[in-house]
């Protein structure tokens, strides 16, 4: 994508600038704060001041490659850079940033030089791109219909079909389009990937369909388009005719890895709101005032977010470090992070009680984020795509015993350091290997020494029991894999693959936590075993293993850390950056 390497600290500086520009979201007078954002949501409108600020800050550049004049160099920092938007408002984040990102990523990866220049010009000029996906069997309304394309005798591409729900269909200058190829010579399930300009289509052959309303992210400007033998100009096709699905999978990996990283911003606000509620509106209150159940909920939410960020970090950095084996990791992150965040939201809802239902005031952003999460995560259709990525990989788990030597490199688990540029060709390999699993063996074979008197010694003993359970789980998953490899060497979509994909994704999150812990700077919070054993305890319980109990003192320490981060406006993630409020 680019040869230039930008140090992560530069992204941290830009992150601070974005936080400062958007200001304290809890300040009721802030035109880009929660009060204004909720008000726009009530009116089902985009938050005007926040949208203007977004473009004034020039945030589109975050997902335009540096080689084309933007700032994008690493996908891990891209996720981090968009968290300030997701913390505040999913409508703003999806409407202005994520939709354009999803409409342009395939262009960066598989488009030609002219298509890339054109897309960069649009985005850097403050314009928008969008995406029109193909129809999926289990589709929600965004993927319940599709566009079609055929070649006329003179070679002109003629578009047909309709889509009722395309985000920003009326506002986007560019629309990345998966169009089913329907010529007489075309195979039944072929697609081509097209970069269309909806505004430039001849009105006589392109109908604008009415606005489409959603329950979450109500302000999004979603509407539909219908083509009637609509001619497309030359030069719109990405890659070769009929290659749409294969080419699209490269962008899918990148987007699947980046979105969970962004969603952590929404969860951050959820936990911050619950803590503000629990300590009585003042973040300066004493953690000792919390009930045991509140401490448990807050500590649990903190470690769940760190676990989510661990898999998001590994998945986004794997795109650069291990492009041939990143697709399963990206799918696991996209599959699980929204689920874990959703579970966290509801656990915190019990803490908030009536405040969970409030639609105004300082806690109202909580219920909005809960509703918006279902829109951002795209629900079951997204899960099914992720599972479709994980399931065919499972039989290759049998190829190795996943010893420590196969463990993925430490670069995957660091929040600093520069990474190699994205290599589109290597992303296409879908290499059927997974270096995260080797971290179970590495941590078992090379346990962290606990000298006598080390206060962490009991936690390290507990960790050793947890590692044994992770090994048991890996063995159980592998036991289920042979059935998936059909007798003729073809993958069998056996229904027993479904629970296995879920288990395997949970196991990968556990491995990402192990990697982050072992590769953290000595003496840092992440290098302590406290968060790790609490995170593994929750992942093991989700896998059905009771596991050893986390000591109360560890839970209290984690709750105190969550409150410390609330007081200091520090992010609930692995970066721990300062926020504007």
């Amino acid at each position, binding site marked *: 994508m680019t040869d230039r390497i930008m140090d992560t600290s530069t992204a941290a500086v830009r992150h601070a600038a974005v936080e400062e520009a958007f200001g304290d979201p809890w300040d009721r007078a802030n035109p880009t704060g929660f009060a204004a954002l909720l008000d726009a949501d009530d009116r089902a409108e985009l938050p005007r001041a926040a949208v203007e600020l977004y473009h004034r800050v020039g945030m589109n550049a975050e997902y335009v490659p540096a080689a084309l004049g933007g700032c994008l160099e690493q996908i891990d920092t891209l996720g981090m850079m968009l968290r300030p938007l997701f913390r505040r408002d999913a409508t703003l984040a999806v409407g202005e940033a994520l939709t354009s990102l999803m409409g342009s990523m395939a262009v960066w990866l598989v488009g030609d030089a002219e298509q890339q220049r054109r897309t960069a010009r649009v985005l850097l000029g403050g314009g928008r791109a969008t995406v029109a996906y193909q129809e999926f069997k289990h589709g929600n309304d965004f993927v319940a219909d599709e566009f079609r394309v055929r070649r006329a005798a003179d070679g002109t591409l003629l578009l047909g079909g309709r889509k009722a729900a395309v985000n920003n269909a009326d506002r986007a200058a560019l629309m990345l389009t998966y169009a089913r190829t329907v010529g007489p010579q075309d195979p039944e399930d072929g697609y081509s990937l097209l970069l269309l300009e909806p505004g430039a289509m001849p009105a006589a052959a392109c109908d604008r369909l009415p606005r489409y309303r959603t329950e979450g992210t109500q302000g999004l400007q979603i509407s539909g388009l219908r083509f009637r033998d609509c001619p497309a100009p030359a030069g719109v096709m990405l890659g070769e005719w009929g290659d749409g699905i*294969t080419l699209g999978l490269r962008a899918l990996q990148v987007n699947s890895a980046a979105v969970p990283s962004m969603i952590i911003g929404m969860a951050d606000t959820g936990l911050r709101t619950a803590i503000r509620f629990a300590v009585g509106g003042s973040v300066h209150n004493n953690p000792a005032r919390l009930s045991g159940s509140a401490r448990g909920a807050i500590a649990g939410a903190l470690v769940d977010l760190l676990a989510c960020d661990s898999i998001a970090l590994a998945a986004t950095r794997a795109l650069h470090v291990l492009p041939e084996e990143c697709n399963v990791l990206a799918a696991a992150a996209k599959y699980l992070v929204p689920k874990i965040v959703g579970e966290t939201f509801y656990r915190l809802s019990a803490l908030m009680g009536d405040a969970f239902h409030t639609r105004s005031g300082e806690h109202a952003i909580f219920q909005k984020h809960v509703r918006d999460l279902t829109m951002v995560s795209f629900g079951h259709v997204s899960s099914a795509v992720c599972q479709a990525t994980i399931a065919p990989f499972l039989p*290759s788990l049998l190829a190795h015993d996943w010893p420590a030597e196969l463990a993925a490199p430490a670069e995957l688990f660091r929040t600093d350091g520069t990474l190699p540029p994205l290599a589109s060709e290597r992303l296409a390999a879908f290499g059927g290997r997974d270096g995260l699993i080797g971290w179970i063996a590495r941590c078992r074979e090379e346990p962290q020494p606990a000298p006598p008197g080390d206060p962490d010694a009991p936690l390290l003993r507990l960790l050793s029991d947890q590692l044994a359970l992770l090994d048991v789980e890996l063995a159980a998953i592998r036991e289920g894999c042979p059935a998936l490899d059909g007798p003729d060497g073809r993958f069998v979509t056996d229904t027993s693959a479904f*629970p296995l994909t879920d288990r395997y994704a949970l196991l990968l999150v556990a491995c990402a936590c192990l990697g982050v812990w072992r590769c953290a700077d000595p003496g840092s919070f992440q290098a302590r075993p406290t968060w790790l054993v609490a995170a593994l305890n929750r992942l093991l319980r989700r896998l059905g293993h009771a596991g050893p109990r986390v000591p109360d003192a560890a839970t209290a320490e984690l709750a105190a850390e969550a409150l410390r981060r609330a007081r200091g406006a520090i992010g609930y993630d692995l970066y721990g950056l300062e926020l504007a409020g």
Partner: protein
Amino acid sequence: MSSGAGLVPPPRPVLGPAGPWEPVRADLDRYGVALVHSRLSDWPAPPGGEGELRRLLGRDWARYRELAGRPHADRFRATRLLLKHVAATAVGARPHELELAYGLTGRLYVRGCDQVDLNLSHTKDVALVGITSLGLIGVDLEHEERRVYGSGIERVMCTPDELRRLAASPEPERNLALLRRWTLKEAYTKALGQGLAFSFTHFGFDLPESCGRARLLRPHGDPVNEHWWTFHTRRFAGGYLAAAAVRDDGRGRNLDTGLTTALDHRTVQVLWERQAAAAHQPRGGG
């Protein structure tokens, strides 16, 4: 775009593994929600001995063994078999292929099958299962003859607004009104996965005259206006009261929940071919 489950259909009786399942499937197709009731005694250990039961219970077998000899064991077996058959009906799989899993608060779900959500309640010998393809569901079941009013429970489960409404209703109706509120509160907090951890005095319900759709209220009676939630109570089978809380995530009305169509076959095909090719490349360290 839908906005809240339109209707929660009445519970369908199921007499054992043989169903009948068609009405359940039809309710799911039509409403995106189905309720099923069954007697626990209709779910004995299956013929085929321990091996077959073990196969059917899957990961729940260990828990069942721990309960062996205790009164809960039969109930556990019966409810798990019922749940698995309901889920299998919804996703078009065989019961032993599915895995029931438990969230951190014990909330039930079908592992790896998030196209459906389900929930369980039982009282005496009757079990109620709710299943939905819309989003989340919680259910609760009580017998109408259960006396709750006057036991003091209303003070720990009702909001100030609900206590006022209760006091204003005729004395003979108060027990049923209280019971309906209770079941709705159980259903809602179970859908959220929180159960009693979510204080029942922090939210209330506005009930219609008889069973039917209820509205979620804040403690002093203001409506919450959560359009994506539907709350319903239903009477069935001689005095049982079923409550359901359903969250419609707005996936639209494409209600295909089958597992065989869940994995996009074009994606699977591309990945399988690439990964199979990669797996045959020589690698170091294996």
